[in-house]
């Protein structure tokens, strides 16, 4: 029987249906969807106003090309980050359907053009096109063509990338690795930018101008630079820029066409590697990291050991840990090396915030485990063991990194006598931080999605997580403040005494937080906590 080609409106309906089903699947997701629309409206309007007021104004060309390039790069990169989340994106889902390759390509383009990002982009770029009328109809026409081609390039380029990496991104290890790389990259953007500008010296505008000159000859920025060429009477330059864009689109389309089939049927996968040989040390020694290999290991040591493994192996935890380490450790070291502000900070002003922020990683400690926490419920782990084991595992993972950072900072600043005060501030704030996290962990626990991609859509928990983190930070900072003030007055002269004081301060607050958490867990019951952190369905 002949099969009628699937009309493109079917893909459009599929995308809309998925958007609707996702939004309506729970109240939380509905809120997340509405927030997404609101953000889309805000970004769209900001882009519209900025581009409308800046377009074809010679002193604002930098702004226009940077915004335009950011939009193009967003279209290029975001589907790669969200791969596997939007069901209309993964070509493998179409493999068993009687569709030609051309139809799948067309359908995917239609699907990509529907949604909040597409609407927000259209609104923003409309500002660019309307603003370009200032330089005449020809410039506006080039702006329209440039903007449309740029978005088209973004859509095609992202699909080409996802098709090329479809198999590797479907494998757990590649996704885990990508997650960490992306998280570290995201955490590094601010620090790297600050360092780059500090290295470049006072001429920041020159750096931006040079960047825009380069972007103007790439597919990301060419479409936004071209109208300026028309406005300044250089139509051939404008045509050359649009030519680069068209050639890039053709290249992306060709790459997509070639890789789509292997992405749909999975021929890009290599043979499965044989399992690495087992561990001859025995099961317990294989589980416990070296610092915990004690003869009398019990539930407490077991939980601490498993937590240490999980801070490295669980992609969500690993990404959070790596991001925080990048921001809190690498950046201050760079900052100290390059004297960004011209003033080098006392060590405790860096190690103190490290400890303060540590707790943020642990406030939803039970949800990291999700349904696996059920094993603890089945075994009947005692509440005190539960809380102390998690805190011990986290402290043993994080404190060595912080300790090394403290020493490196002091050495880089050529102030080794600052080390004790840095240690004191670190111990005081980390203790307060872990105690606060423990105290919040039971009453404020909420489920996290079962995603291996920390940057994937988060089922509406982003706002909840953000508010909780802010509240925790405020509490931790308030309790840590006396220790930081004491560091200022006593840190220099009585460094080691201050370090002991910091340890005592941190330990007291930590134990108070643990006592509160144990009572809370006993009152609530592990089974209810399990239900609280497990997503329905």
């Amino acid at each position, binding site marked *: 029987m002949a099969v009628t080609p699937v009309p493109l409106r079917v893909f459009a309906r599929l995308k809309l249906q998925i958007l609707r089903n996702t939004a309506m699947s729970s109240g939380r997701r509905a809120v997340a969807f509405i927030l997404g629309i609101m953000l889309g409206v805000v970004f769209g309007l900001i882009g519209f106003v900025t581009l409308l007021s800046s377009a074809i104004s010679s002193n604002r060309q930098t702004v226009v090309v940077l915004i335009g390039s950011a939009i193009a790069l967003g279209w290029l990169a975001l589907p790669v980050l969200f791969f596997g989340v939007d069901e209309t994106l993964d070509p493998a889902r179409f493999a068993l359907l009687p569709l030609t390759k051309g139809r799948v390509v067309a359908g995917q383009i239609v699907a990509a053009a529907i949604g909040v990002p597409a609407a927000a982009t259209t609104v923003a770029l409309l500002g660019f096109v309307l603003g370009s009328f200032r330089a005449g109809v020809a410039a506006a026409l080039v702006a329209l063509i440039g903007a449309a081609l740029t978005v088209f390039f973004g859509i095609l380029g992202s699909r080409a990338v996802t098709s090329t990496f479809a198999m590797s991104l479907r494998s757990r290890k590649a996704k885990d690795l990508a997650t960490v790389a992306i998280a570290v990259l995201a955490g590094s953007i601010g620090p790297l930018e600050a360092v780059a500008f500090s290295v470049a010296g006072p001429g920041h505008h020159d750096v931006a101008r040079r960047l825009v000159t380069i972007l103007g000859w790439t597919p990301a920025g060419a479409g936004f630079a071209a109208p300026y060429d028309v406005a300044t009477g250089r139509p051939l330059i404008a045509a050359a820029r649009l030519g680069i864009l068209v050639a890039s689109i053709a290249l992306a389309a060709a790459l997509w066409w070639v890789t789509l089939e292997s992405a749909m049927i999975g021929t890009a996968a290599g043979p499965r590697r044989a399992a690495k040989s087992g561990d001859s040390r025995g099961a317990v020694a294989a589980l416990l990291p070296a610092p915990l290999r004690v003869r009398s290991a019990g539930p407490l040591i077991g939980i601490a050991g498993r937590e240490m493994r999980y801070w490295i192996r669980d992609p969500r935890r690993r990404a959070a840990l790596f991001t925080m380490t990048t921001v809190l450790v690498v950046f201050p070291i760079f900052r100290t090396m390059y004297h960004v502000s011209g003033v080098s900070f006392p060590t405790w002003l860096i190690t103190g915030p490290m400890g303060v922020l540590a707790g943020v990683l642990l406030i939803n400690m039970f949800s990291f485990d999700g349904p696996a926490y059920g094993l603890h*419920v089945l075994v009947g782990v005692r509440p005190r063991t539960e809380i102390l084991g998690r805190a011990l595992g986290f402290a043993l993972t994080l404190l060595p990194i912080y300790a090394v950072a403290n020493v490196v900072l002091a050495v880089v600043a050529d102030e080794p006598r600052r080390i004790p005060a840095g240690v004191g501030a670190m111990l005081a704030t980390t203790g307060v931080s872990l105690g606060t996290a423990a105290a919040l962990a039971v009453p404020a626990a909420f489920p996290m999605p079962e995603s291996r991609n920390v940057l994937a859509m988060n089922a509406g928990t982003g706002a909840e997580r953000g508010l909780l983190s802010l509240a925790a930070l405020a509490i931790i900072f308030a309790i840590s403040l006396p220790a930081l003030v004491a560091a200022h007055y006593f840190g220099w002269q009585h460094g080691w005494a201050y370090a002991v004081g910091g340890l005592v301060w941190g330990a007291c607050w930590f134990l108070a937080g643990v006592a509160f958490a144990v009572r809370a867990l006993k009152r609530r019951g592990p089974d209810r906590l399990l239900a609280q952190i497990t997503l329905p369905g």
Partner: protein
Amino acid sequence: MPAFAVTGMVKQFRGFYAVAGVSLAVPVGSFFAVLGPNGAGKTTLLSMAVGLLRPDQGSAYVLGRSVWDDPIEVKRQLGVLPEANRLFDRLTGPQLLAYVGLLHGMDRDVIDQRASELLSVLGLADAGRTLVVDYSAGMKKKIGLACALLHGPRVLVLDEPFEAVDPVSGQIIRDILRRYVAGGGTVVFSSHVMELVERLCTHVAIMNAGQIQRAGSLDQVRGGRPLEDVFVEAVGGRTDVGTELSWL
């Protein structure tokens, strides 16, 4: 004293009764199957009976002790095959078993020895340092069973233990469970596979719409008929396609 008992169990989710007043007693040394179609309430019932889910009403007992009033002592006697997503799957098989053993407070040497034997018998020793998250569905089922057996419980509660398991592994699991029951242990498990239940079990309960429809020894429930016929009769619903799908 039954090995495992629930009385008047009720659980509702948003007005829907998943379990609607179930009472059941499982004799010591029995091989007890809880049968039922998808959505019958088997997993909810077993989750409440082992302390994973708090019932709205009713009680659960293991060897005479209340699951909810004396949880620590009960959980020493109880081994539960968890669903795959309840495993700490970022550990290797040996590490996961070591973790379960340490949580139970077992001696380190005993953990090492039992883990090694279980992995060997269940054919998981070759998995080496592969993380459980990368195991196949059948391997996850087997490592889950190893976790349930490690501390030598007197009562085993298994949710669909043979699902996704290949025939050779299925044979090994059946052998392990038979030996366990012969040694005085009690097994309670849920299943859809009638042939398997008829071959293995001494007792059966058929559950539908949150209630027990039939319960007793296998012979009592069958009444001389194939178990499948009894099951279909108890559960009801459509069993043939009628005049539809004529185009197939």
